[in-house]
């Protein structure tokens, strides 16, 4: 009986270990194959010409400058809009709102927004910003749409950052005669700043990588100029990548791979920055 039991246990355990190993293998193989393919296809295209070139009918002359510039414009403006609104909402929910039915409903709405597919935000942006507000397919319309996309994420991360601030800080401030708002402005937010910044960086990463909303909005794919203002037409790196993937010539596929390498490198830099911020804030505590 005992022998049988042990064999049965080992069988299941073996199966589990194999399954776990296979699952990890899937992840590692995916990352490895992705990296290898990108380097082989696109590595050769990376260079000064690629980074500063504009759209061209010839794949070897095309570059990502308009896309990079568009990405910076859209991301910057979107964060300028989304960060104050998101942190404001987080402050309200964590500090000023009485716990109860109301806060629960707000939380559900925010959580639902987080789950809305990205392309729907693009369609809504098309209707509201491009059509009803008459902004056209410009940087400002794209930025406002992306601000909507990233808002739930900012709220979520900011709430966690604010929640992590120790209670004593708030109570000491109030005990010294400060008002609630003064406490929030002079104590809570500065204390939560590293967390909020990390959330902002996560938001930037999200915006930089999203293609679907701006696709629906009508970001152009053939631009020879970088955006000059909020009313300029624009394109972004993911849109450019998508456009190049869709072309039949293999030269454009190489461009797509190279542009993906640029995109991933940007994300890598951002993540390293976030890690550094987190590490420094923890060491100073």
């Amino acid at each position, binding site marked *: 009986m005992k022998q049988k039991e042990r064999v049965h246990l080992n069988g299941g355990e073996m199966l589990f270990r194999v399954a776990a190993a296979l699952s990890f293998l899937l*992840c590692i193989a995916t990352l490895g194959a992705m990296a290898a393919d990108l380097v082989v296809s696109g590595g050769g295209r990376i260079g000064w010409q690629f980074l500063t070139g504009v759209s061209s009918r010839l794949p070897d002359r095309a570059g990502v400058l308009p896309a990079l510039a568009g990405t910076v414009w859209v991301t910057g403006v979107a964060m300028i809009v989304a960060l104050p609104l*998101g942190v404001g909402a987080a402050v309200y929910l964590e500090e000023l709102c009485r716990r109860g039915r109301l806060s629960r409903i707000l939380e559900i709405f925010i959580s639902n927004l987080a789950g809305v597919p990205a392309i729907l935000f693009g369609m809504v942006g098309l209707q509201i910003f491009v059509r009803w507000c008459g902004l056209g397919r410009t940087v400002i319309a794209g930025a406002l749409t992306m601000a909507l996309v990233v808002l739930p994420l900012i709220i979520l991360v900011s709430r966690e950052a604010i929640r992590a601030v120790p209670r004593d800080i708030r109570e000491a401030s109030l005990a010294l005669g400060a008002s609630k708002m003064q406490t929030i402005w002079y104590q809570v937010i500065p204390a939560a700043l590293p967390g909020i910044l990390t959330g902002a960086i996560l938001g930037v990463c999200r915006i930089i990588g999203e293609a679907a909303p701006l696709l629906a909005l009508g970001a152009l794919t053939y631009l020879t100029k970088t955006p000059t203002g909020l009313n300029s037409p624009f394109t972004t790196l993911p849109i450019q990548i998508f456009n190049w993937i869709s072309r039949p010539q293999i030269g454009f596929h190489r461009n797509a791979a190279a542009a993906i390498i640029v995109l991933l490198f940007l994300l890598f830099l951002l993540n390293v920055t976030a890690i550094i911020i987190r590490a420094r804030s923890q060491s100073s505590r």
Partner: protein
Amino acid sequence: MGRVFHGARERLGVVALACCAWLSVGVTAAIAIALFQETILFFGQVSYLQFFLDTEWTPLFWDKHYGIWPLVCGTVITTTISLAVAIPAGTIIALFLAEWAPRVVRMMVKPLLEILSGIPTIVFGYFAVSVVTPVLRAFFPSIPGFNALSAGIVMGIMMLPLVATLVEDALTVVPQSYREASYALGAGRFTTMIRVTLPAAAGGVTAAAILALSRALGETMIVTIAAGQQPRLSLNPLQAVETLTAFIAQVVMGDTPYGSIEHQAIFVVGSLLFLGTLTLNVASIWIRERFAMDR
């Protein structure tokens, strides 16, 4: 903590902050209005019967059909394949990380999942056509360049970190006393994990599966790049299909005039997606709370 406000300016500040929070309600309402308004216009010209009973979807062709089922089939195939990849693999990885692996292995593996979760979906789309489809060709020589299997598999890999993280959270919330009771009764580590901890976390695992489903429904880039643009009323994964999201992408990228019925069709599809993901998200919240461990 007392509500201490110094003067009218601060009260105004509270109102401003409240508006920020209520913006989420406003945005949701705006989404609903934007989508439903065009949907109503669409159904002014196309009957409900045609929408739900016709078996072809050809709004951009000369002979127009508006049956929604081919698009639904496309979404169903890709979503099912992706869940078949993500849920088992994600759950097993979560079990391994939460219950089995020594701390050192955990610390080496978690960054792997984080990297995978940070890769934009467009990169996964590129991966599907440049690596996965050629590999699948080795097993299915007649598979077309665009097919549902490739897109589904890659979508599954994309969602794997999400499932793994959510299931891991659900497993860590299970009280340690459960495991200790199981050990005390003589069960081994594996038996405890499979027959005590995992069932105890069933609510969280189900919520994770529902969220993954919701995510898969709304995924656009991978299916647009890899799955094709041929709406088909079949569940064969070795063919090109078109999903609900890919149809939207196809129309917005083309030059369909605004206000035309073809353009309104994307809002109908969008409304479906909106209602679907909304229902699933609310369901997952409800399940997580209903089966919460700390009641």
